[in-house]
Every structure is written in C-alpha cells, then in structure tokens.
C-alpha cells in the first residue's frame, strides 16, 4: 500500500508543476491589461503606467515572472488582489467555507435521496417506480441548472414566499464567523433562530447544486445494484431462501456501494463547476462567484491563484478517492 501511495504522489508532482504553469500562462495571455484594469473612468497616465508595470514585475522576462510566482507560492504567498489589495489567500479562506457548506449540503441531499432511490429502483426493476425514478433522474441529469435555479426562485421565493431569495442568513443576525460554516457557527453561538434561518437560506441553492449529483448517484446506484444482484453469490443466497430484504442489505448493498463511493468522489470537480452557476444565481458568497467576478473584473492575480488553488484541491480530493478505492478494492494496487 505504501509503495502505491508513493507512486501516486510521485506522479502528482509533474502534474502540479503543469497546473501552476497553466494557471500562470492563462493569465498572461488573457486580453486586457492588468494595469489598466485597476484604473477607473479617467484612465492612467503613461508615466504612472510604466511605474506600476515595474512595481508588479510585468516588465521582467516571462520565465522570470513565472519563477518569481512559483517561489512566492511555495512560501505560501499567493499574491495580492488587484481590486481589493487584500492577500488572495485570505479572501479564499473567507469565502471557501461558504462553497464547502453549499457543496456538502448538496452532496448530502444527493446521497440521502439518490442511494435509496437507486436501490429501490434496482430491486423493483421494471416497476412503475423504477421507470418513474429513472425518468426523473435522467431529466435531472439533463437539467441546465442555471435555468432550474431561476425557476425555483420564481416559484418558491417569488410566488410562494417560502424561502429567502438570496444570502446565507437573515441580516438581523449579526454573528462574527468562527468557522465560516454558517450552520456550525449559529450552533456554536447557541442561536437556534439563526440556525433555522441559515437552513432556510441553504435549501434552494443546495437543491439546485445537488440536482445533477443526485441524478448521477441514483443511476449509478441502480446499475451497480443490478450488476451485483446478478452475481452468483447473491443468486445463491436467494436460492438458499434468504429473505429478499436480507439479501439486499447484507450481500448486495456493500458491494454495490464501492463504485458509488468513487462516483461521489469524482463529482467534486463538477460540483465546483456547478457552484459557479449556483452561486451566481443565488448571490452566494463563495469561491465560484468570486472566480467569475474576478474574471470579468480582470483581477489577474485572483484568477491565477484561484485557478491554482482550486485545481490543487480537486487533485487532492481525487487522490483521496483513489486511495480510498485502493483500500476497499485491493486488486487495484497490484496493477
């Protein structure tokens, strides 16, 4: 196992280097000018332009700029946002919990609904429940979520008035963040109404973001389950007269869940992509919205470092999933 882990990590090194080069290169070739992006309606004088260029190191040869960047990143310095003049890493850390909270809630919904639905559909294969669930799942899987979000807002917030329109918590609650996770913070403060408010704000965005993972998980669970139910040992158990429920619970479920766990892990990249859309629609203050705002504001430093940090996180999660998979499925390791 240790050699497997080491080999994986060794493979990661060139990838990480490649990612940093990409993030750096993308930003260099973006049209627009980082210096001019900072100036307002009145523009900036040519002399001042030259001074700023030098100050930001944009006058150095490109490779030198890259190594300077890499060196500061290695020291934990991700640069300073052009717009707010605050360290990028601080902004990221402030906003990241909001995205995590949203993504985990979405995943939670997807798992608690998707897995039982998938199992049930598989067990009752061909029934109207199966057909209906799979129809809904495929529709969910085909959903343009930005449109779905807008529809839900019109209906639940506009028409019925059941859920708040946007934000993370009602503004009457003023709680300084402790962990940055609204659900945890409100509980730490022991403020129950605030917690309720946070939950109400979270529901719609989580449903929207959870829609596609839910569909994927339900479908994946169903097909994994069907496969396992067809295996010899399950048939044997059935033939021996074991009650169907026990067959499902004891034999089938455990084996069927292995690929499902992998699927869940692989949704992370997709979730972060979906977060861009969901956060934009619900004005949810997370990193998805932060990135798209920074791209349109041409905050070059934020785009560059944001890309790098996000890619590193996705990679770390994928690595974790790989290791987990290897742990439950030893055959992988020897390959």
């Amino acid at each position, binding site marked *: 196992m240790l050699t497997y882990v080491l080999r994986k990590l060794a493979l990661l090194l060139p990838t990480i280097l490649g*990612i940093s080069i990409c993030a750096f290169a993308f930003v260099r070739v973006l049209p627009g000018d980082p210096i001019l992006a900072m100036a307002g309606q009145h523009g900036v004088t040519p002399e001042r332009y030259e001074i700023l260029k030098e100050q930001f190191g944009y006058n150095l040869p490109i490779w030198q700029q890259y190594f300077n960047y890499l060196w500061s990143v290695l020291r934990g310095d991700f640069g300073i946002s052009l717009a707010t003049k605050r360290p990028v890493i601080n902004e990221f850390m402030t906003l990241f919990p909001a995205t995590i909270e949203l993504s985990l809630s979405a995943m939670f919904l997807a798992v608690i609904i998707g897995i039982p639905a998938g199992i049930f559909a598989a067990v009752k294969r061909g029934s109207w429940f199966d057909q209906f669930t799979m129809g809904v799942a495929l529709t969910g899987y*085909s959903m343009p979520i*930005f*449109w779905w979000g807008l*529809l839900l807002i*019109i209906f639940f917030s506009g028409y019925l008035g059941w859920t708040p329109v946007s934000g993370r918590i009602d503004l009457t609650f003023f709680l300084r963040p402790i962990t940055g996770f609204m659900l945890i913070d409100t509980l730490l403060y022991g403020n129950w109404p605030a917690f309720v408010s946070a939950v109400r704000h979270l529901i719609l965005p989580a449903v929207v973001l959870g829609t596609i993972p839910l569909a994927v998980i339900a479908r994946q669970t169903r097909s994994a389950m069907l496969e396992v139910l067809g295996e010899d040992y399950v048939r044997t158990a059935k033939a021996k007269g074991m009650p169907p429920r026990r067959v499902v619970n004891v034999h089938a479920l455990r084996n069927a869940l292995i690929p499902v766990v992998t699927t869940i892990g692989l949704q992370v990249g997709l979730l972060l992509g979906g977060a*861009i859309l969901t956060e934009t629609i619900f004005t949810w203050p997370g990193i998805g919205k932060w990135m*798209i705002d920074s791209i349109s504001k041409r905050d070059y430093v934020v785009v560059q470092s944001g890309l790098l940090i*996000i890619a590193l996180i996705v990679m770390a999660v994928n690595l974790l999933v790989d290791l987990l998979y290897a742990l439950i499925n030893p055959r992988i390791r020897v390959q």
Partner: protein
Amino acid sequence: MSTTTEPPVTTKPVSGLREFWYYFSVNRGAVIGLTVFAILLICAIFAPWIAPYSPDVQFRDALLKPPVWDAAADPRFLLGTDPVGRDILSRLIHGARFSLFIGFFVVVGALVVGVVLGVLAGYFGGWVDALVMRVMDIILAFPPLLLALVLVAILGPGLFNAMIAIALVLQPHFARLVRAAVMAEKNREYVTAAKLSGAGHIRLMLITILPNCLGPLIVQATLSFSNAILEAAALGFLGMGAQPPTPEWGTMLASAREFIIKAPWVVTFPGLAILITVLAINLIGDGLRDALDPKLKRS
C-alpha cells in the same frame, strides 16, 4: 467484443447492426429520444422554411408580447416576443441549429483529438503515455466549466471560441477511454497476428485496434454531445458564449434574464428547449449503452 483472429468482414456488420437495433428499439425511452432528436434535426436543417419569421427581424410594435394562451398575446407570435420584438418561436427554431452544431462540432473535435492522443499513449506507452496522461491530468484537475470560462476569456467571447474551449475540456475523457481500450487490446492474439504479418504502426492502431473500442466511444460521444450543449448554454448564460443577437438558447436566456418577473416566457422557453434537447440525447445515449454494452444487456 469477439476474439476471432480474422477481422469480421461482410456478414457480421449486418447482423450486428440488426442486433443493435433490436436491443435499441426495445428501450422505449431511447426511441422517444431518437424521435425528438429527429424532429430537432429537421427543425435545424429547415429552420428558414419552418420558422414563421426571420430570427433577427424586430417588430417594434410588439415588444415582450406573451405567448398565445395569454390574454394580452399577439396572435402573430405563438410563443411571444422578446424585448426588441423578435419572435421567440422563430429564434428557438433557429437556435436548434446552433445547439446541434455546437454538440456536433465539439464531439467531432474532442473525439478526433482524444482518439489520436489516446491511441498514441496506449499503443506506444512509455514516455509518450506518461506525457499525454499528465497533460490530461492537468486538464481534468480544473473544474470543466471554470476551465472553459477562462479559455473563453482568453480567446474572447463568442460561439466558435466557446466550442473550442468545450472541446478541449471534454477531450481527455476520450483520450483516457481509448488509451485504456488500446492497452487492453494491444496484447491480444489478433493484434500479434497482424503484427507478425507485417502491418505497420498506423495500420495496427487505426484499422486493427481502434474498431474494437468503438462501443464505449459511441456512448461517450453521445454523453459529450449533451454535455457540450449544456456547457455552451452555461457559458452563454454567463455572457461568455455566443453573443447576441445570435439566437443561441443559453444566450437568449441570459439576455432576457432581467425579465424573469415581468415576462417569464422569455426565460422559460429557451431553458425548456435546452432541457428537451439534452434529455432526448441522453435517452438515446442510454439506449446506445444498453445496446452496445454486452454485460448490461444480459443482466
């Protein structure tokens, strides 16, 4: 699929096709999907003849008219008009062209690049494999939509650039798939036999091995087709895809977003069109998978 040493010649494809259609047509969803897709295709091809108006003509006397079932409707416009008085139905019909074209172009682009890279990596192995796979790893480390967004920001917003960006983002899936398939196939007997009979690298790669991984490739291609449409619409929605007045569905939705309360139909119909198209393609994809994947077929 089969491990016969002789590559299948004349009789097999016909019966294979027939078998394929048998399994495909059993799946009711797939047939519905195919029908809807055929209708969309007809709409796209014959858009100028089917659509009641040109997608760009502005009826200045009929801004934001609701669909016909609404009391305030203008009977000339079945699904109402948009903020500058263009017929929404006509724009949706013309929009089918863009969405299908996007899907088609992206799949072909991603397929060609992905297959070439995948075959090279799988066939030669060694440093070629390592290099190609690391590059794929890098691309896959970025969330697809974010990467596409940045690429479009670099290339400049527009339909064509959006398609390039999406193709680039989707292509690693093909590459990985083909590589795995090629690696599995390359030590089979029939390949060794072909090699011994003096077939060159290119012949081995393209004619001997590749056809044997066609099944999963087709399924992946359908998946990418629907993904491409969704991603293009998402880019359009974020203002980075096709630019107005192009009647691309995502762009239509984005440029009408401010009317969501006052005139919900300008937002509803393009979204619905996206959903229906993507759903139809995914239904076909499911049918294809069931028909092409022997393991699922029998269970």
